[in-house]
């Protein structure tokens, strides 16, 4: 462990490498550019491959192909690039190809405001792709956490055979902090995707599942196994090729439900959160990413004033941890959700706390200025009066 001053975007990059990523195809975009920049330097150093792509569609397509050969692969972008990637992103989730995508969120719709920060892609991360695919999304708050959580994202993507999005923010990607990270990544435990345990002749294909909770083995392209990665993403129960007549409706039903169920059955392994002073809290601040830090600042200030405040910092956002939200708000009269959008997480919190009678309010900014603890305190006074 050596102490160093590390850039948030470099922390994402190192997390990917520590997790075993050895293929990166990307198209730079502010405020995520340094990830591509660092990867172009680091990939050759660790025996990996870096490809500068022509655009974001190409980036996603390239990493999908690379991952199908068995190499852990990743890319990064920001809002406008994430919008372009949705087609391939949905394909990869449906085709069950392990990938990690880091979204260093900028502010605003369309091209947005390149150098400013936001938290506006909570819903895009989950519902951006067509055709009812699920999502796994992790949101770090600090530079150090950006490293560990991106590493975790690689592991989850392999374990679950899915795409994991790391939801960063401009203000985190372009932040530097003193961190103490391992020097030797070889000592870090990594997870590898399930691969066939039967000889090639007996292998029934990459989607040979019989139970909804199954993550079936996937064979690497070029490994001697017949490996079809279907962009249709819908396969026969039990495996085998789809006949020329097409897919039976119950197979479609099974496949789509399995994409979700394989995550839900492992929700405990995905869900991450930090809970501070919620045991007796009459007001709970629920936040994610960098804005959760302001919530923690506000909590300390509120406690100093005699207000029983607590914080639930959501580290994994999707699948949304409803049961954690309910447990943390057991004694709460009110919940404040500070976020740099117009209430995307608040909607989810409201859903989790439906019929509890707990008052839920937001502190929302879309001017790319970070929410200050005092703004959360002002809302606390307002809501408790």
């Amino acid at each position, binding site marked *: 462990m050596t102490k160093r001053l590390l850039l948030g975007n470099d922390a994402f990059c190192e997390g990917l490498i520590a997790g075993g990523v050895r293929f990166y195809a990307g198209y730079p975009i502010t405020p995520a550019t340094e990830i591509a920049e660092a990867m172009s330097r680091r990939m050759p150093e660790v025996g990996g491959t870096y490809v500068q792509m022509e655009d974001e569609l190409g980036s996603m397509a390239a990493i999908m192909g690379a991952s199908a050969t068995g190499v852990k692969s990743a890319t990064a972008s920001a809002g406008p690039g994430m919008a372009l990637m949705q087609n391939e992103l949905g394909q990869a989730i449906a085709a069950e190809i392990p990938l990690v995508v880091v979204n260093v969120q900028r502010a605003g719709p369309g091209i947005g405001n390149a150098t400013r920060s936001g938290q506006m892609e909570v819903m895009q991360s989950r519902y951006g792709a067509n055709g009812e695919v699920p999502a796994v999304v992790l949101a770090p708050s600090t*530079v150090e956490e950006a490293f560990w959580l991106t590493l975790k994202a690689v592991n989850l993507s392999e374990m679950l055979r899915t795409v994991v999005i790391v939801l960063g923010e401009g*203000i985190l990607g*372009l932040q530097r902090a003193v961190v103490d990270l391992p020097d030797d990544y070889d000592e870090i435990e990594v997870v590898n995707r399930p691969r066939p345990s039967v000889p090639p002749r007996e292998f029934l294909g990459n989607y040979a599942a019989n139970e909804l909770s199954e993550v079936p083995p996937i064979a690497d392209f070029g490994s001697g196994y017949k490996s079809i990665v279907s962009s249709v993403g819908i396969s026969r129960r039990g495996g085998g090729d789809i006949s020329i007549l097409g897919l039976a409706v119950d197979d479609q039903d099974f496949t789509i439900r399995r994409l979700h169920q394989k995550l839900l059955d492992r929700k405990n392994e995905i869900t991450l959160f930090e809970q501070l002073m919620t045991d007796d809290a009459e007001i709970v601040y629920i936040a994610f990413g960098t804005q959760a*830090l302001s919530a923690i600042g506000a909590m300390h200030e509120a406690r100093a004033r005699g207000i029983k405040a607590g914080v639930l910092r959501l580290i994994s956002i999707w699948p949304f941890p409803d049961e954690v939200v309910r447990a943390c708000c057991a004694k709460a009269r009110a919940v404040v959700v500070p976020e740099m959008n117009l209430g995307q997480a608040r909607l989810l919190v409201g859903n989790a706390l439906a019929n509890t009678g707990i008052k839920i309010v937001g502190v929302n900014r879309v001017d790319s200025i970070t929410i200050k603890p005092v703004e959360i305190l002002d809302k606390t006074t307002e809501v408790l009066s």
Partner: protein
Amino acid sequence: MRTEIRFAGVGSQGTVSCSVVLAEALGIVKDYQVVQTQEYAASISGGSAQGDVAFSDQKIIVPWVLHPDVLVAMAQDAVKQHAAAMRPGTCVIVDDIMVTDVSSFRKGVAIHWAPMTKLADQVGFRKCANIVALGVFSRLTGLLTLEEITKAVLARAPGRAEVNIKALKLGYDVNLDLVAA
């Protein structure tokens, strides 16, 4: 105790670099907890730019600078933008040719006029005004010795080492009587 520093100016003056070097000096050369953040306009040259550093002997929770204890203003626009954030009892270092009007600061804010751009010109490279600023800052605040800040500059900006060392020393040796509030 938590202390907050802001370097502000226009894009290409190197204010963000200033904050990175200072973060290195405080976090690695010294042993503080440090977070450095930055904000700049999409127009890289000429737009507003700022580099912030928060440091403490304890864990830093809120990473962004809320009310700077020290502001280094390299341009008039920076004064305009950040004057309101400065509370009485805080300290401001302004460039004595790039800044002309400091009337927007509240009473009780100590203003120091420092010849940062002038000294950079003396070195023959105006772009190192930010390094001069780090020298002035270190001396005036007493936070870092010349040796400590030099170490950080060399770690973070290894190019043009000779120019930077010269600029840093000129800034550090600035006549404190002249820049006194």
